[in-house]
Every structure is written in C-alpha cells, then in structure tokens.
C-alpha cells in the first residue's frame, strides 16, 4: 500500500490525465469522423488541428455563466459537478499495471476488493447528474431528454451487471487486479462461448450506458434539441461533455480489464522481449484505444434507435441474453469443469 499523500497525487494526476485525454479524444473523434465522412476534420488550429481542444477549452471557460430563470440554482450548478466527479472517480479502481511497476509505486489509485461493484456503482450515481440537470433547467425539452436518458441508462445497467457475472464466476473475485491476473479466457475452452456472448452483451450495454450512437437519443440534436443539455452553456456544458467522454474511457478500460486481460501485454511479445508484458499502463491504453475507435466508428456508421425500440432492445433482448450467458457459464463450471 502506498502512502496516503502518494495516493492523493496519483488521484490528481489521474484526473488531469483523464481530462487531457478527453480534450484530445474530441479532436481524435472529429478527425476520424471526418475521414470516414470523406472530409478532413479540424486541421486549421495548429498543426493537424492539435490546438483545437485548447481553443475549445478557452472558449468554454470564458463564456458567460448563465443560470436560466426559474432554474433551481443550487441543483443547476451541482448537476454537472456530480456528473464529472463520479465519472472521474470511477476510474480510480482500474489497475494500470502489476504491483509496484510504476517507478516503485502501484499504478492504481485504490486496489479495492470490490472493484467491479465500485465501478458499476459509481457510474450509476453519475446518472444523477443527468436527470438533475434536466430537472433543474426548468424547460420541457430538457426534462423529457433527461428522463429518457435516465430511463435508458438504468435499463442497460441490468445488462451491464449481468454480463459481468460470467467473468466473476470464473475469476471468483471482485477485485479487478485479481481478475486480470486470472485471465478469464485461459481457464478452459468450454467457457469461451458463454464468455464471448457476455463480452458482446457487455460492450453493447456499455455503449448504451455512455449514451453513444446508436443509443444517443437523449442527445440527439435533431429530435429534441440536445435534451438535458439544452440550457447549459460554457464550462458547465463542457463538464457534461467531459463526463461523457470520461465515462466512455472508463467503459473502454472496464471492458479491457474484465474481458481482455487489462494491463497485461501479449504473450507473443513476452517471448521476444522478456518483461514487456509487465510494462505499466501502455497495454491498457492500447486496449482502450481499440474500444474508443469502435465507439467512434459506430457513431459514424449507424443511425440511432428510437426510444421505444431502444427500451425494448434493452429489456427484452439484452437482459435475457446476459442472463442466459451467466447461467450458461454457471452450467459449464458446475457440470463440465
């Protein structure tokens, strides 16, 4: 266990790194979307548009701090703060490398024995930020959007929670570091089918959790004019965007940690360069990058679901599939292994 002041510094650094990553994710997303749409993305501000996020940040900070008439002032200001605080905190339990690998310190903020539950719980609390924001704005559009967003998120929470169960059954622990060390795919080939189903179900639930296309109806400009974000501008709006992207990154990291072996490097490379699979952070970042690219790719390609189709998909299909995967994993462990 690292000393407390080291943990505090690590927490700060993590938050700053996540925010910096958010900033450049927006640029990366816009460039990739642009290339997929047969156009350049932003490439004027600085070489390759690298100064674009800085320009956006400066713009957001210097905008007027508006509080809408009849808004519930305290809640109106607190809502984006709630969103970002819990989005950032969720990342704390995710291990970035083996113990002691980060210059002698542990590359994580906190090594929780209930890591999985912690991440699920904290991302759930982030929903408060969304619907409180819509409520406090005192606007019909915002309210409808926030309610729909909340309903969508909690519906897909179930799929998320149930898909994780397969991994937990195999690993026998909720501690994320230990799950990575176990390596869920290495236990038995019999487990691969249910694990694959759980993996797919988890990825789909994660996309719905972070409100990304095809599940981004709550933010669909075309349909209800930006929903819960309608009355937010400036830094408070930027906080919502930050929390969305940080959630995306947490989801990507969570998927990588649970299903793809987290911070461990590929075995193949280990043979060539001994000790490479012990390098901190780099492997996790690469795996996260795969999923971030997937999220962006889906956004470029797919149209969005209508709200009722989305709910039906979550409750009727995803829930059952996740549950079936769990039970199948249990059956394989119980009767085959």
């Amino acid at each position, binding site marked *: 266990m690292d000393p407390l002041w080291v943990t505090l510094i690590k927490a700060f650094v993590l938050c700053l790194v996540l*925010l910096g990553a958010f900033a450049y994710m927006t640029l990366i997303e816009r460039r990739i979307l642009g290339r997929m749409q047969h156009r350049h993305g932003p490439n004027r501000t600085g070489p390759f548009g690298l100064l674009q996020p800085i320009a956006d940040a400066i713009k957001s900070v210097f905008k*007027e701090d508006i509080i809408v008439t009849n808004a519930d002032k305290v809640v109106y200001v607190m809502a984006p703060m709630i969103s970002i605080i819990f989005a950032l905190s969720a990342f704390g339990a995710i291990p970035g490398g083996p113990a002691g690998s980060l210059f002698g310190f542990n590359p994580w903020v906190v090594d929780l024995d209930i890591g999985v539950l912690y991440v699920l719980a904290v991302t759930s609390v982030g929903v408060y930020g969304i619907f409180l924001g819509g409520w406090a704005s005192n606007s019909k559009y915002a*309210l409808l959007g926030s309610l729909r967003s909340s309903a969508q998120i909690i519906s897909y929470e179930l799929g998320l*929670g149930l898909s994780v169960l397969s991994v937990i059954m195999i690993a026998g622990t909720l501690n994320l570091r230990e799950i990575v060390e176990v390596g869920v795919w290495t236990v038995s080939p019999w487990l691969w089918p249910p694990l694959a189903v759980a993996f797919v179900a988890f990825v789909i639930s994660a996309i719905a959790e972070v409100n990304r296309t095809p599940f981004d109806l709550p933010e669909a400009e075309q349909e209800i004019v930006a929903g819960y974000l309608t009355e937010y501008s400036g830094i408070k709006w930027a906080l919502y965007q930050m929390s969305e992207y940080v959630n995306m990154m947490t989801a990507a990291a969570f998927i990588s940690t649970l299903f793809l072996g987290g911070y461990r490097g590929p075995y193949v490379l280990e043979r060539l360069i001994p000790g490479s699979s012990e390098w901190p952070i780099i492997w996790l970042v690469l795996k996260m990058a795969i999923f971030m690219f997937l999220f962006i790719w889906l956004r470029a390609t797919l149209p969005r679901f209508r709200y009722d189709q989305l709910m039906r998909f979550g409750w009727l299909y995803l829930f059952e599939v996740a549950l079936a995967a769990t039970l199948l994993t249990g059956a394989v462990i119980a009767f085959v292994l």
Partner: protein
Amino acid sequence: MYESLLMMFLAAGFIGAAAVVVGALLGPKRAGPDKLAAYESGLPATGTARERFPVHFYLVAMLFILFDVEAAFFFPLAVKFGMAPQFLFAQAIIFVAILAVGYIYVIRKGVLDWK
C-alpha cells in the same frame, strides 16, 4: 484502503468545483431577460417544466429496482461460485425461475409497449 478512495473523491471533487468556479469567475456578466429565458425553439415558452410527466418513467424505475436487486443478489453467488458449483447453480436456476415469472408477467402486461 478506503482512505485512498477518499483521496480519489477529493481529487475529483476539487477538479469539478474548480472548473465551475473558474468558469463563473472568468466569464462576462451581461445578463438579460432574453438570454436567461428557457429555450423553446425561438418562441416564448408555453407552460413550465413542472407539469406532469408520463408514468412510464416511474414504471421503468420500479422494474429496474426489482431486477437490479436480483442482479445484486447474484453477485455474492457469483463470487463464491467455485465453492459448490452444482448446488449454487441449482439455487441460481430456482431464483431466476421465480423472477422469470414476474418478468413474463411484466412483459405481457405491456409495460414496454407504447414507449
């Protein structure tokens, strides 16, 4: 161990609060009634947001509570699954079967249909 968690929340909380404070301090202060009015596609808003909203959202929340509690009960079962797999699997099947009855009832009642 949980002190580290506190550190995490402190750091995140500080950053969130700092962002809002900085934004409030640095922006211009030229408030006017048009700027502060709620948006309704360019025309004066009719009615407030404090009207009644559809009961569907309440129903979804209730369903979520029920089935999330089910999922929550699954977690300890999953963690300790290795200790007695067959027995625990049978327990899981019975548990899911009971809840499945409720689930099918809900679907047949049409809670998810018109939304």
